């Protein structure tokens, strides 16, 4: 990237600087630490110069936004053209309460919706199932049938607003409910846009809300790819997620490597089914974490874009869109502190800024009170305002990839890419992604990192403001979200009424047809849609699949 003679000169001068200027200075004023490291325990030098990135070829390795390898961004104009979607993940209690929150967020300038479901829904149980005890509406909204979905999106223009849904095990069923609700309102399924998370591999690895064993789960996912590319062309049928891997304790490098590795595993399965790469690849999307180390996070997003474009090209993708690593970002929940919760606003601001500078397509900013409970209205509004300030006031959106070309950022981007490929080699040696899951490789790597990180906090080698330094002994005064105490009862009554009033013969027939299809190898989406349209509940539909596919039990590793 630099003229050879000039580079030689720079190298020479750098050695001079190190031996004289720098060494003399630290003799009198030593640095604060012997070793500086980022969150992946990568040693960071005091200074980066052209010498650290002299191996890079600008046109080949860095290039221009909107052109391969998309390091600088997937679009030529990035946030100068369109700001990222401000999409706050939310859901609690009944569909009525959450619907009210959605209207509130949209009134305050949110530009997309993101649904958090409660645990019973995530596991495919209806609210009245015994396993749902104590969990109703606690960390998301309960959706047990199309009826609840109708209430959840009441008054929301689903033909114009895109919706992301964090649902994995029963993703196909919940997606079918969303489609059915739109259709019942006279909106064509070809018009609706949004995302289902639908990423089961990271469930086995990190988030742990799985239902079925890997093989049938992968089949269901490829069914949604196939159905989506033909029938719901504006829908992202998967959001390949590093977020939860990171929250479970991984490093940034592990997040990058495991997520993109999972992405390629889905691609392999889809191609094995006979789907054309350019038919489904444009609808693959990603979801990353924004943690504390500002530059490391920016380098991670940039590296992810370049690696993905390169790998998809290798696999034969022809459409530019197939090469896009489009992603949503959420600031890191695990960095929020219960102590002095107000200072979480500052953490979130720095993390959100990294996501924006890294070229995110959509963003969720955490609320300051989320280490204590689900966010209150005021807390979530401040979180949204944080994004609006970055977008409207800070000026960081004036140019594309403003940190591109920084010696440090380019060096780190490259380094993270290199580490990612090293992890892939290790996974390959274990026989691929699924065998590595069964052997607990990812789980063990993540648990190791999580423990090392916590130990450093315990030993004060790593400082968390308000936790192991600058503590304050004063009571936490922050209002906590109150939920409708009668919500669960109302939800259960609604379910009972539904089961009595719907056409139960039709429900039985549709569930039977689904069972037969599941035992064979047809695409299950049309069958699931029929079940959902006839108001079969989530639990009933999922039970059919549980009967046919069985349930996954994970190896216990710590």
């Amino acid at each position, binding site marked *: 990237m630099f003229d050879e003679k000039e580079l030689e000169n720079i190298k020479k001068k750098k050695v001079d600087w190190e031996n004289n200027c720098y060494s003399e200075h630290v003799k009198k004023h030593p640095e604060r630490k012997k070793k500086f490291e980022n969150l992946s325990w990568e040693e960071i030098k005091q200074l980066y110069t052209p010498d650290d990135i002299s191996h890079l070829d600008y046109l080949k390795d860095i290039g221009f936004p909107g052109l391969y390898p998309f390091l600088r961004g997937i679009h030529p104009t990035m946030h100068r053209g369109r700001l990222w979607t401000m999409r706050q993940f939310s859901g609690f209690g009944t569909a009525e309460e959450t619907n009210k929150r959605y209207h509130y967020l949209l009134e305050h300038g949110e530009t997309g919706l993101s649904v958090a479901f409660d*645990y*019973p829904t*995530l*596991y495919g149980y209806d609210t009245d199932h015994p*396993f*749902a*005890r*104590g*969990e109703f509406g*606690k*960390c998301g909204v309960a959706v047990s049938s199309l009826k609840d979905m109708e209430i959840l999106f009441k008054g929301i223009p689903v033909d114009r607003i895109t919706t992301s849904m964090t649902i994995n095990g029963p993703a196909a069923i919940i997606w079918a409910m969303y489609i059915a609700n739109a259709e019942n309102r006279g909106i064509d399924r070809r018009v609706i846009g949004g995302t289902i998370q639908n990423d089961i591999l990271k*469930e086995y690895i990190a*988030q*742990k*809300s799985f239902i079925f064993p890997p093989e049938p789960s992968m089949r269901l996912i490829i069914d949604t790819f196939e159905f989506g590319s033909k029938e719901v062309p504006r829908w992202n049928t998967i959001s390949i997620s590093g977020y939860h891997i990171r*929250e*479970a*304790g991984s490093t940034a490098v592990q997040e990058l490597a495991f997520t993109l590795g999972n992405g390629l595993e889905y691609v392999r399965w889809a191609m094995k089914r006979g789907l054309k790469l350019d038919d489904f690849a444009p609808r693959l999307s990603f979801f990353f974490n924004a943690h504390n180390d500002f530059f490391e996070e920016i380098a991670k997003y940039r590296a992810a874009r370049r690696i993905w474009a390169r790998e998809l090209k290798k696999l034969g993708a022809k459409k530019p869109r197939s090469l896009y690593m489009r992603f949503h970002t959420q600031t890191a929940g*695990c960095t*929020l*502190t*219960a*102590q002095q919760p107000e200072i979480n606003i500052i953490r979130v601001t720095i993390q959100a800024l990294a996501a924006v500078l890294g070229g995110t397509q959509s963003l969720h900013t955490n609320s300051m009170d*989320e*280490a*204590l*409970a*689900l966010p209150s209205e005021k807390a979530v509004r401040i979180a949204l305002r944080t994004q609006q300030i970055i977008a409207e006031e800070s000026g960081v959106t004036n140019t594309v990839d403003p940190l591109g070309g920084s010696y440090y950022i380019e060096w780190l981007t490259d380094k993270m890419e290199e580490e990612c490929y090293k992890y892939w080699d290790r996974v390959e040696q274990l026989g691929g992604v699924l065998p590595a899951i069964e052997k607990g490789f990812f789980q063990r790597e993540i*648990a190791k990192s*999580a*423990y090392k990180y*916590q*130990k450093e*906090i*315990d030993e004060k080698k790593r400082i*968390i403001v*308000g*936790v*192991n330094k600058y503590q304050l002994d004063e*009571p*936490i005064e922050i209002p*906590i979200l109150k939920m409708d105490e009668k919500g669960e009862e109302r939800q259960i009554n609604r379910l009972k009424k539904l089961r009595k009033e719907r056409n139960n013969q039709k429900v039985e027939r549709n569930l039977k047809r689904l069972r037969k299809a599941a035992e064979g190898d047809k695409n299950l989406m049309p069958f699931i849609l029929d079940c959902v349209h006839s108001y079969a509940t989530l639990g009933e539909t999922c039970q059919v699949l549980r009967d046919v596919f069985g349930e996954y039990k*994970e190896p*216990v590793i*710590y």
Partner: protein
Amino acid sequence: MERKIRVLIAKPGLDGHDRGAKVVARALRDAGMEVIYTGLHQTPEMIVDAAIQEDVDVVGLSLLSGAHMTLFIDVARLLKKKGMDDVLIIGGGIIPEEDIPRLKKEGIKGVFGPGTLCEDIVDFIKKNVKK
């Protein structure tokens, strides 16, 4: 030789967030305790059975889904019912301040939120365990 403190770390309910449970399990083991980790998705009955089977001194519950007021209390009451009154029960997770007095009354002696240092949990167990 003195018997090691035996701890059961358990994940009640559907919550899959196991980072905290695993970190605490390792930290207690490194502090010289014997640790049994149940894995995910345990009903209160399963947890109490495991506590009896393993003859533990401490039951540590981890829950980040918000269901602690139901599930922690279920476990505490069931332990009492089965005559395991001596077992020290502690819990951790996303727990609002205002829930803590009620949990303590129900027998969850120590409640630890995000930002707790592992050494504080170790100290708490050593001070409060009945052996």
